[in-house]
């Protein structure tokens, strides 16, 4: 991931103009986002396939645990 990729996302997907303030930070964002996404991918490789995205928790889950 590099600054140009992020630039394309902003202008191509969100159809926004890049202003100089945002442009200046793109290389930094590219490094930071890349690191976070790589880490998430590493962690998600260990997930079991039946692990669903959950809500924070459900009241039913709490009631089940209490019982």
């Amino acid at each position, binding site marked *: 991931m590099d600054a140009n990729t992020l630039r394309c996302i902003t202008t191509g997907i969100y159809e926004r103009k890049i202003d100089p303030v945002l442009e200046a930070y793109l290389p930094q964002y590219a490094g930071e986002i890349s690191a*976070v996404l790589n880490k*998430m991918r590493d962690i998600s490789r260990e997930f079991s396939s039946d692990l669903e995205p959950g809500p924070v928790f459900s009241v039913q889950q709490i009631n089940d645990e209490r019982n």
Partner: protein
Amino acid sequence: MTLLRKTIQELAPLIQSKWLSPVELVQECLERIEETEPAVNAYITVLGEQALRAAAQAEREIMHGQYRGVLHGIPYSAKDLYCTKGIRTTAGSQILSAHVPDYNAAVIDRLNQAGAILVGKNNLHEFAYGTTSENTYFGPCRNPWNTGMIPGGSSGGSAVSVSVSSSLFSLGTDTGGSIRIPAALCGVTGIKPTYGRVSKRGVIPLSWSLDHAGPLAKSVWDTAAVLAGIAGYDPGDPTSANLHVPDYTHFLEAEGQAALKGMTIGICPDYYSDILHPEIDQAFRQVVRWFEDNGARVREIAYPSRETFGVRSIVLMAEAYTYHASYLETCAEQYGSSVRRRLEKGQYIPASAYIDAQRLRQQDQREWAAIYREIDLFISPTTVVPAFPIGESTIAVGGEAVDPRIQATLTIITSLANFNGYPAISLPCGLTAGRLPVGFQIQGRPFDEGRVFQAAYLYEQAHPHRSAVPPESA
């Protein structure tokens, strides 16, 4: 100022017995705001005449025998994220500087029904997206213990107003620690309740699945009383839990010190010990020793790992960007620069990463549920560093220089309870050598705020930290 030094627990009987008028109390509060604001900047809007009218109404009701409860006639403030009908609600931003809602947040309505008196809207970190409350548009909020220091955030003004007694309690919000961090740095008590315990309807969001609404006050009893008054099901909030709300103050002295005997308390020093400020480390060790000396069994747990700290922020980045997308498109230049920098990053999070982060959350839920089969409470320092100077470009955390506005430092510990939704309270446990407050945190099981308050109350009653006041309160 004498009246404002008292707690709600002390003032409520005086009001109920008609010994003290709400008008007198609110007048003193408004004078206190005027006295302290030049130094601390805790308020964006102060409601002088409106508050006095509400106080006069409260006085009439009480004189006619219509006492509504412990919050009747008590002056409070609210973080300027809570919509208040006819009163500007700015989110601490130039973008909403003229925004006047035509409705109240659900919690504001509840407090109106309880007879509490709103005296003002508190300063905060812009749109709650930060932990320093260095607000570029309304000016920085300042720590009353040293006005050159941050008060923490994002509910900085809320914590400061309680700390200097310019309100008797305040409403804050907490997405990664924003009630508990300023509570710790300003030497007051604040609770992030269980997710869904308090309605967020009418509260300007930062991150929907991480946001919590909750109170800050001077004492555990006061915090418990306010939470009992604002918690409960709201059909207008889809995340609201339809569960009974107990009177939390009844838990505080239920078993006395005996409540701690046999209690198992978990700690996880591996998570923070390499980056913990030595004075906070020392204060927290004394907290652990106190629980042990009073009959609790303290055991180390091996969860969580700090490895997941960065990826947990994926949820926050994506949700915050989504809320702000239209503002960023139309008026990005009106944001403070550090808040804008953080917001813009969120647009680059792909959907699959956000979903994986929510799967991590499910896994995290299972881990904590298993841990709480072995422990009753989990305690930790609230923050890894104490307050630091306003405008400081970098601070030292674990030997590394970090920019606290961009890299999450103050939220390292507190954000755990946002990710899992469990209730967590911060209360004072000492001062550094430089007389800056230190706080520790107690986290309980979902909807078990009673036990959290009970343990916090027992600690508080045994320690004199509550009576320490900042120089700006002198």
